[in-house]
């Protein structure tokens, strides 16, 4: 979560929500949260566990390069 916040701090193109998901069962269902930490990048990329900085960057770049709605 801290790395996501740091990405948001660095770039005005990035926004980051840290979500304590037990407060939001609707989100848990919507994003199929069964293990944490789970990160959803943009509209469709997602991963479980903590990624190093370089790999989170790759995910962000991939999400930013995709046309909205094209990642499934």
């Amino acid at each position, binding site marked *: *979560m*801290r790395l*996501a*916040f*740091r*990405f*948001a*701090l*660095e*770039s*005005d*193109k*990035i*926004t*980051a*929500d*840290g*979500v*304590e*998901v*037990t*407060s*939001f069962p609707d*989100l*848990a269902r919507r*994003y199929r*949260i069964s293990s*944490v*930490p*789970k*990160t*959803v*990048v*943009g509209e469709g990329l997602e991963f479980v566990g903590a990624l190093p*900085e*370089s790999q989170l*960057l790759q995910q*962000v*770049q991939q*999400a*930013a*390069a995709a046309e*909205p709605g094209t990642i499934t």
Partner: protein
Amino acid sequence: MPLISDDVAAQLREEFQGLLNPVRLVVFSQALADPEAAQVKRLVEELGALDPRLSVETANFVLDKQRVEALSIARIPAVAILDAEEDYGIRFYGVPSGYEFGTLVEAILDVSRGDSGLADETRAALSELPRPVHLQVFSTPT
């Protein structure tokens, strides 16, 4: 009885010596209808009282529509972490307890310093992103 114990408060005061610029914590709640939101409001108010460089603002999620829209608040309880002038798009939703309380404190310190601490290559790559990306990191209390 405070939510932040005396021991933790003392430790946080020490950590907040590392604050550089003022940080604004905007808490969105609807306290009467939501005990969890009331807890977050109380927790952030206690946190804000630990250092004069921290300020806490509270907003009602239902009544204060202008601020809800301005800060793109999607649900409550929510905490927006901003500096005096800029909104970096950093939000915490839910109750920041356990490990994530530490994450909130770290975010406050990072925003205050205005420095992401990321590697130069990462900074360069992020400056060239072609379009916005929204990150959502889900956790549970630990």
